[in-house]
């Protein structure tokens, strides 16, 4: 029992926070921000598996989020699929697509990989923007209401619990994966790629695997998003959105699942908090991105954790 508590300490704290947060949420707008933070967090927890643990960059992950959203919107509203079926189908399609893409491009390193993932993201976004008969083009389209077994998630409160539960699930899956032979293989290929290959790790396959897994996390969050938002538009899958996801992962702390959640929450709140200084928003955002990377390149959570450890053990 104790061991389980120990192993899942972060998860338990997160669950407690999610349970208590509604005490501070005063209106639907607050709930809406919290829900979006949670959805972003699911994407970032997955993306962090790729960036933080395996050390591979993706500047195109918003495309997978967007594809998930469009798959749900198109399948439920145009073809009348049930929401879970559409979500599963979207996740599988994105998984397959990510696999097909990843095989050739994950041989690339560093900036070349950044370029390739960026390119994929731009291409997908152009396709969804242009094929207006299917996607509604720049005006976007709406998904059917989120109904499971006759219960429709309509209130912001119900969505809050749905997204909170999904986030806990995502964090639990990610933590399990990190602490498994697969997770060690990923961290190993990040730490010393040649060393990993020589002791028997097929590094390319693992990079592909984690790219696919992280794309599926994004797609899942995108599906939920589609049902929650009034309209799905191409703006959710552009280059800027991909960069936002990477910033969330890096800001909270690479190779730290709790850092990913925190990064997603802070970076989702920030634009809302800065709304009063509308004109200064990009300046502050850019400044924070530069400042974090210069002064705490490991990100928020690992840097603070290290400071605390140092204080404990003088």
């Amino acid at each position, binding site marked *: 029992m104790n061991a389980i508590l120990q192993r899942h300490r972060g998860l338990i704290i997160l669950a407690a926070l999610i349970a208590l947060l509604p005490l501070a949420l005063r209106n639907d707008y607050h709930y809406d921000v919290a829900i979006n933070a949670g959805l972003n967090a699911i994407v970032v927890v997955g993306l962090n598996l790729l960036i933080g643990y395996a050390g591979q960059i993706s500047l195109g992950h918003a495309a997978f989020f967007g594809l998930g959203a469009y798959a749900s919107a198109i399948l439920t509203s145009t073809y009348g699929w049930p929401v879970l079926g559409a979500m599963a189908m979207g996740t599988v399609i994105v998984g397959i697509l990510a696999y097909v893409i990843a095989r050739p491009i994950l041989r690339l390193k560093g900036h070349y990989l950044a370029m390739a993932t960026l390119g994929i993201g731009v291409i997908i976004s152009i396709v969804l923007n242009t094929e207006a008969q299917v996607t509604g083009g720049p005006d976007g389209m709406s998904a059917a209401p989120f109904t499971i077994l006759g219960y429709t998630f309509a209130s912001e409160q119900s969505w809050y619990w749905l997204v909170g539960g999904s986030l806990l699930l995502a964090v639990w*899956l990610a933590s*399990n*994966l990190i*602490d*498994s*032979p*697969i*997770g*060690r*293989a990923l*961290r*190993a290929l*990040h*730490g*010393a790629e*040649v*060393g*990993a*290959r*020589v*002791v*028997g*790790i*097929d*590094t390319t396959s693992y990079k592909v*695997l984690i790219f696919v*897994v992280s794309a599926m996390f994004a797609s899942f969050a995108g599906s939920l998003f589609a049902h929650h938002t009034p309209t799905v538009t191409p703006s959710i899958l552009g280059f800027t959105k991909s960069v936002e996801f990477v910033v969330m992962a890096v800001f909270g702390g690479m*190779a730290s699942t709790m850092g990913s959640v925190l990064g997603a929450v802070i970076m989702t709140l920030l634009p809302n908090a800065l709304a009063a200084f509308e004109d200064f928003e990009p300046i502050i955002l850019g400044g924070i991105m530069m400042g974090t990377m210069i002064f705490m390149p490991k990100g928020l959570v690992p840097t603070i954790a290290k400071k605390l450890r140092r204080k404990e053990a003088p």
Partner: protein
Amino acid sequence: MSLLKVTNLTKSFGGVSAIRDLSFSIEAGTIHSIIGPNGAGKTTLFNLITGVYTPSSGAVRFNDREIGGVEPHKLAELGMNRTFQNLQIFHNMSAVENVMVGAHLHLQKGLLQSLLRLPSLARSERQTRDHCWELMDFVGLAQYRHAEANAMSYGALKRLEIARALAAKPKLLLLDEPAAGLNDTETREVDEVIKRIAAQGITVVLVEHDMKMVMGISDHILVLDYGAKLAEGTPAEIRSNPDVIAAYLGTVG
């Protein structure tokens, strides 16, 4: 049949040949040392054998199978493993996790199993950890059982790489300067460890500059100079070989 057979192996970088037309073979169950001055091509030879580099020409056969150009992880599956002169430690992990990565080939690693952390996987993980701790004890790292890799000394990391390679249960183990940078006591410990590894039936290929150690534990020695074979034989033969003496006096003296 030899465990490893190298024939007319050549590797050039741009215009420079680091290994030239090299042939030799290694018998199973022996300790085989490769010596030679700095830049002789020893590490390059290891990189060629373990698939890190592809040969420019020539052949490498392992267990009677041609392995030139085969990827390193496939060779590990076939029973080959190694350590590195310039460490390839996973600094982002704990010491025992480094060793557990070495055991990767023998572990259950299904994606669903891992995501859900099924009981069978949890059990296998505990057993692996215990086994890897034993391997750390075996190479003399008992006090580092709970250490992070980035908190360990250079000498300890060299041995951690040996433990990691052993976790893969290799048939052939290549050690690239395991005693470099170690003090006398540590060197003697490593010497002991190598003997015990060989006693388990693992074939060892050793690159080492410490002549006392090489002469003491090798069954067979290959001397490289400028990428080519200078001499080959038992320690006694090598010690009295005039070419070797000339080369070593020439470079050292």
